[in-house]
């Protein structure tokens, strides 16, 4: 394919339409119905964890799947936003909606700063710069006085939504709020990919020199996508801090960047549903192996290897590919 793009990525074509809009709409509605009923059968906090990671992976997929840039530093946006939201909620006493929004803005701001340096490079160099910058954010979180060092920020109050109307200390109430946030975030990704801006992103991905020769300042488009991806990752991180009432170094460590890559790759890079499926699968694996003595990283590692060796398009990507033949 295109040597300028990273060889790390499988050669997949992002899907902008399933070819069957009625089927896609139907599946979306069924999925939404299942998610609305789910907390009656499954522990809501576990479901909220899946939703947060689904949004995080979808935000990551916006960049890797539709711009072709493999970031290895998305933990900085997720974790940075988790700290920002936790701080705003706990220390400044902000209402939850403002706290989460602040987290998303911090994520986008970090994205602007990191993207400014990273988008000038391509392939593995881009990945390495994002990793290096994300490690700098990690060390700030480790050392800065307001992050609580190794302890992180604990006991973040969930508070009340809409000026005291909705009590978020109820897991069920919070679940529906998180479901709404995630649905909004996923819709945002869907809309961006299928917008006039998304068309230009696709053109840049397909033939960057040609896009330049048509007068497009491609760095700005890439930076725009990077900031949107970071902002949505921040939305996920801020929401996660509210759900678990916690922001820790785990959220901002490089393993988190690796985990979101795993989720997206497993579900299917460049597919809309892939990151959601991948996030659910990885979260479920971690959940069920958390109580066993068998180390969960070995399981996720094996799953990752199976994915790379056997179905490089990811679960959803593979299904779509076979469906179309």
């Amino acid at each position: 394919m295109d040597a300028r793009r990273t060889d790390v990525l499988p050669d997949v074509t992002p899907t902008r339409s399933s070819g069957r809009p009625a089927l896609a709409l139907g599946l979306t509605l069924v999925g939404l119905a299942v998610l609305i009923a789910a907390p009656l059968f499954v522990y809501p906090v576990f479901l909220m964890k899946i939703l947060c990671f689904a949004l995080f992976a979808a935000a990551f997929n916006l960049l890797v799947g539709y711009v072709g840039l493999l970031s290895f530093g998305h933990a900085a946006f997720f974790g940075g936003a988790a700290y920002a939201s936790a701080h705003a909620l706990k220390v400044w006493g902000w209402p939850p909606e403002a706290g989460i929004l602040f987290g998303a803005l911090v994520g986008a701001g970090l994205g602007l700063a990191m993207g400014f340096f990273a988008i000038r490079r391509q392939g593995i160099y881009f990945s390495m710069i994002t990793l290096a910058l994300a490690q700098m954010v990690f060390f700030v979180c480790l050392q800065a006085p307001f992050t609580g060092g190794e302890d992180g920020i604990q006991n973040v109050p969930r508070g009340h939504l809409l000026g005291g109307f909705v009590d978020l200390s109820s897991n069920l109430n919070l679940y529906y709020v998180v479901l709404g946030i995630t649905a909004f975030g996923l819709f945002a990704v869907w809309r961006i990919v299928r917008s006039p801006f998304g068309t230009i992103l696709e053109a840049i991905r397909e033939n960057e020199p040609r896009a330049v020769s048509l007068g497009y300042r491609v760095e700005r488009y890439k930076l725009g996508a990077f900031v949107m991806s970071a902002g949505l990752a921040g939305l996920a991180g801020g929401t996660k801090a509210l759900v678990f009432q916690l922001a820790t170094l785990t959220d901002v460590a490089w393993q988190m960047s690796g985990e979101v890559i795993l989720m997206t790759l497993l579900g299917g890079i460049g597919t809309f549903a892939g990151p959601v499926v991948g996030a659910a699968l990885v979260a479920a694996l971690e959940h069920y192996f958390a109580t066993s003595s068998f180390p969960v990283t070995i399981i996720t590692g094996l799953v990752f290897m199976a994915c790379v060796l056997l179905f490089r398009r990811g679960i959803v990507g593979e299904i779509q590919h076979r469906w179309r033949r």
Partner: protein
Amino acid sequence: MTSTPILSTAGLRKEFRGFVAVNGVDLSVREGSIHALIGPNGAGKTTVFNLLTQFLKPTSGRVVYRGRDITAMAPADVARLGLVRSFQISAVFPKLTALANVRVALQRRAGFATQFWRSSGVLAALDDRARALLDDVGLSAHAETDAADLSYGRKRALEIATTLALEPDLLLLDEPMAGMAHEDIGRVSELIRTVAVGRTVLMVEHNLSVVADLCDQVTVLARGEVLAEGSYDEVSRDPRVREAYMGSEHA
């Protein structure tokens, strides 16, 4: 030269790690002309193209477009001034339809390029203009075909339609006939003649019969330097030009 040049260079030079690819080229392209840049392989034609459009930065020398020094400009900004180039390898967006290819070129000036909150359905507003451009290059029957599935000649035609969508004042075509079948060459030649009305065209071309047929002015490059300049008849009689070409043919 009577009229002022639309594009000129002064002492254009490009070195790659000690190798001088372009050495002191003074080029002058008259407004409204079809100007060919020819020369044996490795003469530096494509490098000159890259320097003119700022895809490469010259080691020294200047590029002046309509009296304005564009040497330090970003390539996208050069395109915005109306100096639009094509590429030697056909430059289409392969997984987009022919219609969508042209629309991408129209999007920026229509103000549709940065809207991320609207549906791409709004781009249908550009369809009429895009279809008209496809019609101009004889591709109206292939509007819904993916660019990757078009024949080579049609890809080049699509590329020209996409370039014309920007309404450029100066078209830079890098080997528009390269690798093209005989019947396609005639069609694309006709196309270039048509689009050159009211525009200036600078083209790199290997096919000398196309150059003789099409171009008002010819610049011959050899080893990164201008060997001769003039009409096709003038330069083809130049013994140094003959030698450069013969030399390359025997090599």
